């Protein structure tokens, strides 16, 4: 493997770790010392150089290892990638968006050459070279959405738009925070969010849907979501809950710093040009508490957020059991000093 990418695992021996550079650019999701749901969307425009916002689709040191983990999840459970028959066009839209973005933003790793509909794709980190005919699925080894998302970090769902609603009708979901694509596929926006507590009553989903129905091609937006994960597991699926659930019960004050991870999702939303579908990449970033507290502002702030979060939210996010251990551990990094607004490190 090249020097650009870590040789690491997200299962069994869990050798995943963040380099100092990766810690520095970690997308810390809390702009203030407390947390409550919000639609919190902003334009997905290029951010500071070196940040996770610099490019349309961030490719980082975990790329190759994450793609190996995805291939393993799919081998174990092919239902993690599904596309209802009418969503193939949206899959081509997504393939085009990702290939063009990566070839433009990371020319040292990716190349896309077009001659009419005859395309030539080169992915050096994964050692893939593919000549195919755009819009002809028989020229790819699998459907277009599956093909490109086997080569792109983050989960993906594709939403069809009709009847003034969005319908999740295709997806590649192997790094999820405990929701099942196989169960939810075919649902509309309110249906697939149904289990989320409080937010419906707050009008969050009505407002978000209204906003998204008007999303324009070429003007993607982004937001953060977050939860907690014990051990650097990408695949915290409900399907495998009996496998990863017991890990939550084995946390001690000695191990919490190394085993407890903040899990951040950078969610972006893109209107697709031919299908009028919306692509929804959900990119997962993991950071262990020990790594996170090396940034003093983040250690202080995370302590305050976790200490003050309502139990109902901690339950929904699945970490109520270990919340006291987290607060005790993080307290030692909170000297009570004020924190600056915004999520960037000081």
């Amino acid at each position, binding site marked *: 493997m090249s020097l650009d990418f870590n040789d690491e695992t997200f299962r069994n021996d869990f050798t995943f770790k963040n380099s100092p550079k990766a810690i520095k650019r970690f997308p810390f999701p809390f702009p203030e010392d407390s947390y409550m749901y919000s639609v919190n969307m902003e334009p997905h425009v290029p951010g500071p150089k070196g940040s996770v916002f610099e490019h349309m689709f961030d490719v980082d040191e975990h790329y190759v290892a994450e793609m190996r983990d995805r291939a393993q999840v799919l081998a174990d459970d092919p239902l993690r990638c599904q596309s209802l028959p009418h969503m193939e066009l949206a899959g081509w839209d997504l393939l085009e968006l990702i290939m063009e973005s990566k070839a433009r933003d990371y020319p040292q790793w990716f190349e896309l050459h077009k001659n009419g509909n005859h395309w030539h794709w080169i992915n050096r980190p994964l050692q893939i070279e593919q000549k195919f005919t755009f819009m002809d699925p028989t020229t790819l080894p699998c459907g277009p959405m599956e093909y490109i998302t086997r080569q792109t970090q983050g989960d993906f769902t594709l939403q069809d738009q009709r009847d003034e609603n969005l319908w999740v009708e295709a997806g590649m979901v192997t790094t999820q925070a405990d929701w099942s694509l196989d*169960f939810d596929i075919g649902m509309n926006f309110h249906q697939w969010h*149904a289990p989320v507590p409080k937010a419906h009553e707050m009008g969050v989903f009505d407002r978000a849907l209204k906003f998204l129905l008007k999303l324009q091609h070429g003007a993607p937006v982004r937001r953060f979501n977050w939860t907690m994960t014990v051990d650097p597991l990408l695949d915290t699926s*409900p*399907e495998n*809950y*009996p496998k990863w659930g017991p890990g939550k019960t084995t946390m001690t004050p000695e191990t919490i710093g190394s085993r407890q991870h903040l899990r951040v999702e950078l969610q972006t939303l893109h209107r697709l040009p031919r299908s009028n579908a919306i692509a929804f990449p959900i990119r997962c970033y993991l950071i262990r508490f020990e790594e996170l507290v090396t940034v003093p502002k983040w250690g202080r702030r995370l302590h305050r957020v976790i200490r003050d979060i309502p139990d109902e939210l901690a339950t929904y996010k699945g970490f109520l059991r270990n919340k006291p251990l987290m607060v005790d551990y993080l307290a030692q990094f909170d000297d009570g000093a004020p924190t600056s607004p915004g999520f960037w490190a000081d």
Partner: protein
Amino acid sequence: MTKTEFEPSIKSRPVYGVLEAAPGLAHLIVADGEGADAVTEMIARAGTAMLASTHIIYMPGPNGCDKSAALQALGAAQFRSSPSFAAASSRLAKVVADAHMGTQIYVAGTEGLIAQVCQAVAAQGLPYESVHTEHRGSTVRRVQCVHCKGITENVTHDPFKCSHCGLSLFVRDHFSRRIAAFQGVNIDAEDPGLVPDSVERFK
């Protein structure tokens, strides 16, 4: 016995109405158990003229309630008494596929029946919401195990043992129209063996 009143639930769970005959060239009615009462009441209100173009498929409810004699006595153009939904499903698929524009589809009875009829209708390319629905009778649930994907019919207790993989599952209100089932999730995943007492929640 009248329409079942449910507590307000989360937004993925369907809500059911009251059967009312709608103008149509033909009428397909599927019912189980106490759903037969919703059908006879609808026809009593609408008049018997519609029976000449009505096809009724009926099966006993999961609680054993069987009112096929009363439904057959209505004198619909076609009447079929089936022992179960599984036994009726190929007939239903054929009838829906053959249905012409202007056919009204009605289903009355348990949630599992309503969901599976709507699923069969959607599979033929008709809108899921085009089916007239009314809930009557048993509130037992059809639950899919999120782990092994097997569906357990007529679940009365929560938690319950998956009839396929044997895991203890708690029953969520989260409902998939595509699968026609509620979701069941392992209740002792974090603490294997610590299963709370099972409670009869659905009768």
